[in-house]
């Protein structure tokens, strides 16, 4: 045999090497879990921020709100990609898959935020290529190769946010047509993901949640149609009536409060 055979005392030397090995692994793992948690937190804040902007009582049109949300979101997303740029060197080569489980939840949360922002801006689903592009440096070199599973699972979480978005906005001007857009979109998402469910572990559980979200939007849309039918009015007129009664109900006061709350939240984030 070409290799030396271990003798009693040299066992210690061998295990010294293993210790360095295992310590290196667990230290790196800790670092990545920490960074991953930061990404998750930031992503959650982005989602809240987007919801907040979309429900602002501004005079802006919906389109203007969407664009404002997207640009605010994009700014925050840059903080997330900066974290990925920082940990990139820890994930080179075969290391990515070794530590994948530590960072996978944060990737999914990030994709949820990103895809929500993308939907507000474009009304479409963000593509795999787009996400990979954002997870790359300015020369187009990816921080890591985005796993398909994480992409799909992140998208699956988007449907929950869209449900919230549709339902909170339903009493706003144009909220009902928006809700029906969202409803159709979520329905398509669910259908697309359904086909991929056998391939991705965890996706079937998430599909169940998506189904529930979809049902909530459908129920809300149903209620609006049923109640709307009692008045023989065009949808714009209904919007006016709703808006009028909301504003006459101390709307001004509430608007003021919300503005204050927003400012406080912003402070927290800093």
């Amino acid at each position, binding site marked *: 045999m070409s*290799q030396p055979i*271990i003798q009693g005392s040299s066992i210690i030397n061998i295990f010294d090497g293993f210790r360095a090995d*295992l310590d290196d692994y667990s230290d790196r793992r800790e670092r990545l879990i920490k960074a991953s948690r930061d990404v998750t937190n930031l992503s959650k804040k982005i989602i809240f921020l987007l919801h907040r902007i979309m429900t602002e009582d501004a005079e802006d049109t919906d389109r203007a709100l969407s664009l404002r949300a997207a640009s605010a979101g994009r700014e925050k997303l840059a903080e997330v990609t900066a974290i990925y740029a920082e940990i990139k060197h820890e994930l080179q080569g075969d290391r990515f898959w070794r530590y994948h489980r530590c960072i996978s939840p944060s990737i999914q949360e990030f994709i949820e935020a990103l895809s929500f922002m993308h939907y507000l801006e474009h009304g479409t689903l963000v593509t795999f290529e787009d996400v990979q592009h954002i997870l790359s440096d300015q020369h187009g070199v990816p921080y890591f190769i985005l796993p*398909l599973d994480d992409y799909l699972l992140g998208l699956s979480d988007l449907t929950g946010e869209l449900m919230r978005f549709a339902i909170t906005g339903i009493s706003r001007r144009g909220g009902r047509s928006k809700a029906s857009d969202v409803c159709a979109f979520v329905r398509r998402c669910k259908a697309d993901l359904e086909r*991929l469910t056998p391939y991705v572990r965890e996706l079937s559980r998430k599909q169940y949640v998506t189904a529930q979200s979809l049902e909530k939007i459908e129920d809300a849309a149903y209620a609006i149609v049923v109640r709307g039918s009692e008045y023989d009015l065009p949808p714009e007129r209904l919007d006016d009536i709703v808006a009028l009664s909301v504003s006459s109900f101390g709307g001004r006061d509430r608007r003021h409060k919300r503005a204050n709350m927003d400012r406080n939240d912003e402070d927290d984030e800093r």
Partner: protein
Amino acid sequence: MDAEDLNHINQLLDHDVELREKIKDQVTELDKKARTMVGLLNKIHSTPSNLIPALLDSVRPTLDSCREATAGLAALVPPSQFWRWKDQWANALRTVIFAASLVEYLASGKLISLAQVSDILGIKEEWKDRLAISAEDYLHGLISLVNELSRLAVNAVTLGNFEEPIRISLFVKDLFAGFSMLNLKNDTLRRRYDSLKYDIKKIEEVVYDVSLRKLAAPPVNDTAPTTS
């Protein structure tokens, strides 16, 4: 998602499923060999020491043939994806490592090194981002070795070999000292390491029994049992 993207994703996922199946086939092969060896090695508990070399010779061809499975795996795993797939073969590989370490111990009384195991299994250095033996898998194999040796200590005595438990005791203590140097996390390796003390206790009891009855000459140095 537009239809083209969806199809593309579908294709990629299909490809992964196919790869998983192919890897599984190789792992099944490796697993069969591992079980064959464990089956053969089980006879050490009833084989007198003079017949052990012949028994080991019957195991070696299977051990050597594991190269086919490792080469098959290395050819399948895409570059840099070692850690993505390794869970699939970890158990089979650990059993093979255990068998190799047991063969080495019975042949030479020594601990097989990780490099030696890689050598026997034909695992090449240039495969390292596709197929390698991780420290963890090697250590798992060694813990299985200790588990087995604690049984052997008992059964050797039954077969009238009173020196073997003492050799085993010295060997296992060295190994345990090595394990004690590791900062283990709360994982399976840690739990299995924690169970080593029961094996050591069992071995010490056997040593105690045979030395008390003067069935074996006391060990030459004082790393021997403290129970006496």
